[in-house]
């Protein structure tokens, strides 16, 4: 298609949007409200997911090294554990350091134990995937030189269940919400076009091909989607940064944190703008097609 024709399509789409400005405004409004909803929801889902993962990743195995092992033997054990399959991270903490931590947590009274430290040298082990924790713990338990292997048996299985359910619910809700958004937006755009089916008929009667009729409408749908995404993008950017900065200090000492605005907003803006454009373009194309088939 010639460039001049494309220019005409762009010009026609913009003129027509302006001359049907009340319809356009209604359509943009519908897109705005829907995408705002989608935006808030996506932000919530991503954070729930992040928190769930943080909890999962916090799961670690505590290996109490037998008191009969001296420091060098303990380090040998560390190396052995590191070589086991599915082990991601091994951290050795001597019993002296453990005591310092206990004293820091529970107070100076416990510093009495300085003379006779009752604690074990300890290995903190993380599995490559949280779900493999139990298996890794079993393997470590089979090694010589450990007094006990602790990993919250029973509790972590429960945690994984809760996390999985949360994720599934999130995914299902996201799909449902996106479908509702698609329906709402394309329906509004359909209405703006239905009001103009007479125009489509005339265009065809004076010799316009289907594409010639269709393209300006699709472009118009694109502008409507794009303009509709504008406000949600701005609102979410400002809103999320503010919510993040207000809530983050409250959970500073927790095992979880919220998704950083930079990471979340990049994805969110891309999703909102693309949804606006794609639904706008295809919503128009589909409803124009209905009126093109007439004659």
């Amino acid at each position, binding site marked *: 298609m*010639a460039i*001049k*024709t494309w220019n*005409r399509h762009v010009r026609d789409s913009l*003129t*027509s949007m302006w*001359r*049907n400005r009340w319809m356009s405004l209604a359509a943009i409004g519908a897109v705005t409200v829907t995408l705002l909803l989608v935006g808030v929801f996506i932000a919530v889902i991503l954070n729930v997911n992040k928190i769930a993962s943080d909890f999962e990743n916090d799961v670690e195995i505590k290996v109490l090294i037998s008191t009969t092992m001296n420091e060098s033997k303990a380090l040998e054990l560390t190396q052995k554990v590191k070589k086991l399959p599915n082990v991601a991270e091994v951290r050795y903490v001597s019993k002296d350091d453990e005591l310092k931590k206990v004293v820091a947590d529970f107070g100076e009274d416990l510093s009495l134990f300085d003379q006779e430290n009752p604690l074990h040298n300890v290995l903190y082990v993380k599995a490559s995937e949280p779900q493999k924790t139990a298996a890794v713990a079993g393997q470590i338990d089979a090694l010589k030189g450990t007094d006990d292997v602790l990993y919250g048996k029973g509790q972590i299985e429960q945690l994984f269940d809760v996390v999985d359910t949360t994720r599934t619910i999130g995914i299902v809700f996201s799909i449902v919400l996106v479908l509702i958004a698609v329906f709402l937006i394309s329906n509004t755009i359909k209405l703006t076009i239905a009001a*103009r089916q*007479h*125009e489509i*008929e*005339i*265009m*065809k*009667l*004076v*010799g*316009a*091909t*289907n594409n*010639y009729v269709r393209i300006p409408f699709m472009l118009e749908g694109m502008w409507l989607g794009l303009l509709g995404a504008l406000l949600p993008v701005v609102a979410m950017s400002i809103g999320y940064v503010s919510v993040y900065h207000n809530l983050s200090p409250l959970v500073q000492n927790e095992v979880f944190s919220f998704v950083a605005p930079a990471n979340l907003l990049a994805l969110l803006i891309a999703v909102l703008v693309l949804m606006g454009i794609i639904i706008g373009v295809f919503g128009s194309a589909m409803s124009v097609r209905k009126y093109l088939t007439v*004659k």
Partner: protein
Amino acid sequence: MIEMKHVVKKYPGGNKALQGLNVSIAQGEFVYVVGPSGAGKSTFIKMLYAEERASAGKVIVNDVDITKLPARKVPFLRRQLGVVFQDYKLLPKKNVYENIAYALEVIEKDTKFIKQRVIAVLKLVGLATKAKRFPHELSGGEQQRVAIARSIVNQPQIVIADEPTGNLDPETTWEIMKVFEAINAQGTTIIMATHNREVVDRMRHRVLRIDKGRLVNDQRGGGYDGY
């Protein structure tokens, strides 16, 4: 140029609008199509630009049998014709200039050429000063003239008009008929469905009378009543 052979048109529901119509129209002719309401005039006209398709028979326009024309080629047929619709069919959200230019834009003419042509036809129909008006700001006669301007802007060999003077006062009617005569004088075929006895009697041309879906009279230079 235009030929119809045994054309039958049945509408869904069994109503037969045309029942075996035969007619042949040569290049440069001016033809009135007359007959009572519901006789099949509009169907006959719509058949020529494929808004309606024949149930049987042949409709040949510019050497092509359009009864077999696939839908995607219909726009190309319409570009060879100028059609003035009974209800004008102007695009409501485009102004006069844009409405006329649209017929040239769809065939991808250059903007400069379009400007020249549109201004020329606007002068011809006497609307040069109303180029920026929108259809709803115009009188019926003015809208009719925009529709005529659009139909001839592409310099088609055939102009088809369905009741082009239907809603006009006598004065405007004569103005518009003069435009058609002028176009015809340049060699353009004109096919005009009309109810206007005065027009047919005063500006004598070939008259096709359709009644009950058949051609009942075909007379060169005949009046409205066939004499």
